[in-house]
């Protein structure tokens, strides 16, 4: 429903009510004001794929909380702000703040938007709840009321080498010290930061990095890269890619009849259904280290299990597809904000929300993706971790870490192209 329509309707209703003031005005005074939350996501423009996915997750969480009776009896009203650029992030944050009276924000899918929207919120004295932006310097800005529940780029990149060393190397029968890895990434903030984290972690584990190659996600031809990889012949590729370049890369590897023994993506392009839609069964066997999709039911609290069921049902009913990683992340971020921050704060002022955030102590396994919630002094959640999924039968299946594992990995090493 649109803002303008809603406002008009309210005005008409108020006009009617003027005739019978006594009864209704006393009732409306008693009614609880909703808690207003503004979502700042890129809903249009180049990054809107993830923005919309994240927003849908958050929205589903808020609807669920409301249907369960809201927060201490108060409903949450979620406003949409289209932060399609840093400029738009500023004006949308301010619009929601001053026109809709929003003092609580959630965001933001890309770091460029999150960085700007959160500083704007901070200066407005509002509370900012970051779920998706991964820039490492995000929490290094001395902000008081900005908290990041989700992962940093470092957190996002680390599981890939860990998984390679712990699980894949033994399966490939290679000592992890002798494992040769090529790191491939698109050259925006996402690719650069995450691939840097991958390399740092790999070096800690003694894994050799044979190649680190960056390219623009807008590229139309990745065959030079495939050729480079073929002549280098690494055991494993760890790739940080967006959607179309991930698809292109897989297709061109196939064209050139090339395959490493294992392929590990890091989120984004490898954790989205578009990949399976584009390359069909060739997707099988690809790993993706990313925000967790789901978790092993045994490792979840009862509440999280109920949430999981409700989320899947609602999401599928509304969008006719199963939620993937970004939607799932949106849901976790929304549920945590509503239940564990708003639910435990004395009021919904920024300072009380800050207080509640600093005090919050939710054990691991309390959210559908296995996360918990505990902030360090910079406002970074310490109980968020990355996980690894694998495409099996054209579906994403969680395989790592143990708490999230639903199924064993398959196709290690990757069979020859004609045998898949």
């Amino acid at each position, binding site marked *: 429903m*649109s803002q303008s329509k809603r406002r008009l309707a309210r005005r008409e209703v108020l006009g009617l009510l003027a005739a019978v003031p006594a009864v209704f005005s006393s009732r409306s005074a008693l009614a609880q004001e909703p808690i207003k939350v503004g979502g700042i996501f890129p809903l249009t423009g180049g990054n809107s794929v993830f923005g919309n996915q994240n927003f849908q997750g958050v929205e589903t969480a808020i609807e669920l909380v409301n249907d369960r009776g809201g927060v201490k009896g108060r409903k949450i009203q979620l406003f949409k702000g289209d932060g399609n650029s840093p400029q738009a992030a500023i004006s949308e944050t301010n619009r929601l703040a001053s026109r809709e009276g929003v003092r609580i924000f959630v965001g933001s899918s890309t770091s460029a938007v999150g960085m700007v929207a959160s500083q704007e919120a901070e200066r407005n004295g509002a509370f900012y709840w970051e779920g998706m932006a991964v820039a490492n310097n995000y929490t290094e800005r001395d902000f008081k009321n900005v908290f990041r529940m989700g992962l940093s780029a470092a957190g996002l990149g680390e599981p890939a080498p860990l998984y390679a060393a712990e699980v894949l190397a033994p399966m490939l029968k290679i000592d992890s010290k002798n494992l040769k890895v090529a790191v491939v990434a698109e050259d925006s903030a996402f*690719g650069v930061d995450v691939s840097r984290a991958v390399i740092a972690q790999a070096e800690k584990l003694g894994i050799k990095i044979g190649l680190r190659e960056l390219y623009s996600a807008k590229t139309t031809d990745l065959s030079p890269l495939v050729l480079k990889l073929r002549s280098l012949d690494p055991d494993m590729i760890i790739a940080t890619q967006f959607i179309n370049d991930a698809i292109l890369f897989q297709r061109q590897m196939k064209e050139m009849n090339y395959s490493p023994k294992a392929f590990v993506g890091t989120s984004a392009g490898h954790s989205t259904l578009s990949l399976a839609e584009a390359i069909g069964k060739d997707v099988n066997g690809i790993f993706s280290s990313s925000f967790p999709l789901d978790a092993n039911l045994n490792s979840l609290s009862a509440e999280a299990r109920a949430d999981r069921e409700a989320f899947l049902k609602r999401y599928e009913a509304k969008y006719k597809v199963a939620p993937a990683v970004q939607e799932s992340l949106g849901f976790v971020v929304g549920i945590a904000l509503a239940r564990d921050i708003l639910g435990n704060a004395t009021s919904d002022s920024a300072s009380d929300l800050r207080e509640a955030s600093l005090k919050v102590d939710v054990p691991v396994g309390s959210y559908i993706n296995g996360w918990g919630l505990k902030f360090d002094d910079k406002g970074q959640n310490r109980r968020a971790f990355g996980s690894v999924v694998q495409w099996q039968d054209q579906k994403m299946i969680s395989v790592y870490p143990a708490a999230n594992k639903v199924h064993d990995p398959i196709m290690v090493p990757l069979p020859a192209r004609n045998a898949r």
Partner: protein
Amino acid sequence: MKPVRSPLTGLLLPVAGFAVLAALPLIFSDAFFVAAVTLAFLGAAASLAWNLSGGYAGQLSLGHAAFYGLGAYVSTILFLKAGISPLIGMWLGAIVSAALAVFLGAITMRLKGSFFVMSTLAFGAVVHISAINLRDLTGGPSGLAIPLRPSPENLIFAKKLIYTYVALVLVIVFYAITRMIAASKIGYALVAFRENHDAARALGIRTLPLRIGVFALSAGLISICGTVHAQYYLYVDPDSVMGLNLSLNFALMAIVGGLGTAYGPIVGALLVSVVSVVMQAYLGDQISGLTQLAYAAIVILVLLVAPTGLGPSAHAFLKRRMTWLS
């Protein structure tokens, strides 16, 4: 292009206009409005700078975001790595931009119409890509975050209203510079050149040094806007301070308001900002893309109906009405 020298349009009208602009954020003080006005002022200042070269000299540059971004980066890098105040850094940024503009101008100023446009487009892309790849200096695509340490010396203010007035000061200063240049011999030479290259040459006007000079001035001024942008957004990354869209927007504001007029960029910036913000507010909620769709449609309509810009078209319309009435 006839210069009007009546006291009304010469001084009184602009002073009154700026007084109204200055009063706006005080009268309508909600944060949304103030933020919109601040962005509009900053856009107006940048567009005024662009207009010096793009409007008066007719050098349609689509690479000015490079200079804007340079201003943002130079001052921010100096501030973060050497603790130099942006108040100093912005001048250094302006000098770097102006120097680069002289270099670019020397190469491209002899190119005609579309060729010049394309060369500036490519220049913008080169600078943008360089900023992405010079990771040690620029932080690469992740950009540079500036900590919130309010102090006038840092050009960081806790109260955002101050930015509104900083931007307004830029607008007034750039407007004055534009008026001075337009009224000078340089202005006449540029306009003569823009209107008719051959005629200007026939009159013996040597415009190349003038055009390069104005191009450099334009680059320097717009880079100061970049510094202010950095200190307001507290975040600088290649896409948001050097993107092609930015260049297009600077030009668009001037074109919508009235290319090659001193007031045009201000009118254009206010209109463009108001339209986009209002649409965002009322349409942004529904289907993704609807806001920008409507925005683009409005731009197209304006260009079709008033190809010389809304300011001059309104002026011509009023003039027709006046003569008809009298």
